[in-house]
């Protein structure tokens, strides 16, 4: 798996997202710029300038018309993907840490930071998937997190629920229409922040990554814990691969946080686990610092990782990846990957 190295950011990466067809990937970093790249050859398509602070998050609507971004300048911006023009700015009281389009692109959620005088919130914005349309200033919904601030959030199937991961390690489920808290569960170790939350392709289950060094798979319908993936380093990100039953975890201890010298090298690896059997099956080296974000091509052809080192590495899966299977998977006829997974 020889990766393509994308050099375009000057500071650490914060999030990477693929378009629905997997052809383009968007990356954002603390350097205030969003980059768009062809995932096949790593050629840079363009950049999106306008934010006045570190970028924390990006997402693309399912029709690849609009790009949404959230940043430390307390704004959410909407961009015309094709022209690079900013078509809407929503202002908030604090930084925006995560944005996520629902499955039909008509609503965008934004997670806002907690700061003196302001509680963390999850805000829902109505979006018209049209670059010419006048977007509404109104917030369709505001969920206030008074227990523990949300750090990440995503929409479930049918936009029925908003699922959030919190600073205290808990995961909660809100009604997508009313914002009412339905259920909350201490998914990760108490006080260990949930750092990433990514949905399966049909949005019926999701993976969380945490500083408690584990990633977990949960049902979006009732938050049932399905699987646990233990690791030996604090995790910043986790993704579910389509086609093959794997999950990819990323993390690592920043050099300044490592108290003992001679800490084992190569902690900055993407770790592959079998989604169902929970075993670690492989690692991919490359980054010189912790992995902050991992994204998988929705068509299952490859993945990309973004590091604290400022690099994006795009990997195309090779033959060995697609051939890999357990004996029992062959026996049951699902070794090549299956829709059933």
């Amino acid at each position, binding site marked *: 798996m020889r990766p393509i190295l994308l050099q375009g950011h000057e500071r650490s990466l914060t999030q990477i997202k693929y378009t629905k067809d997997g052809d383009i990937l968007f990356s954002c970093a603390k350097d205030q710029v969003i980059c768009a790249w062809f995932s096949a050859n790593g050629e840079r398509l363009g950049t999106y300038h306008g934010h006045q602070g570190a970028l924390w998050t990006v997402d693309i609507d399912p029709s690849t018309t609009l790009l949404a971004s959230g940043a430390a300048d307390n704004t959410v911006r909407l961009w015309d993907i094709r022209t690079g023009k900013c078509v809407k700015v929503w202002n908030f009281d604090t930084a925006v840490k995560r944005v996520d389009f629902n499955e039909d692109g008509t609503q965008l959620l934004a997670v806002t930071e907690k700061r003196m005088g302001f509680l963390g919130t999850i805000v829902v914005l109505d979006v018209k998937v049209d670059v010419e349309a006048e977007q509404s200033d109104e917030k369709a919904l505001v969920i206030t997190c008074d227990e523990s601030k949300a750090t990440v959030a995503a929409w479930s*199937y049918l936009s029925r629920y908003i699922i959030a991961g919190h600073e205290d390690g808990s995961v909660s489920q809100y009604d997508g229409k009313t914002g009412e808290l339905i259920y909350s569960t201490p998914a990760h170790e108490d006080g260990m922040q949930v750092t990433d939350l990514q949905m399966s392709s*049909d949005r019926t*289950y999701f993976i969380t990554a945490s500083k408690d060094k584990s990633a977990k798979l949960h*049902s979006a*319908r009732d938050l049932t814990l399905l699987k646990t993936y233990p690791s030996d380093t604090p995790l910043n990100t986790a993704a579910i691969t389509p086609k093959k039953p794997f999950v990819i975890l990323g993390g690592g201890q920043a050099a300044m946080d490592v108290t003992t010298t001679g800490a084992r090298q190569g902690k900055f690896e993407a770790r592959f686990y079998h989604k169902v059997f929970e075993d670690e099956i492989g690692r991919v080296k490359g980054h010189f610092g912790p992995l902050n974000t991992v994204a998988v091509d929705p068509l299952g052809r490859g993945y990309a990782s973004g590091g604290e080192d400022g690099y994006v590495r795009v990997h195309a899966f090779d033959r060995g990846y697609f051939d890999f299977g357990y004996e*029992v998977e062959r026996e*049951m006829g*699902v070794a090549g990957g299956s829709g059933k997974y």
Partner: protein
Amino acid sequence: QDRIEEDKEKGAIVDERRRVLNEWLAWREREEEELKADRRELGLPETLDAEEEANTDGKAGGEGAVVE
């Protein structure tokens, strides 16, 4: 003797994997059925892909009608 023990252990691991995989596939099947039922209830095509296809087909059909 050691090999018999080893084989036993291996067998137990394989049995356990078979059980875990069956459990997962059964759960996925239930979830998929439930999602389809939820979508039918809302008057939507059974899957998101079918819905998107229907939308684009609709558009293509419209353009076709103009050409005719």
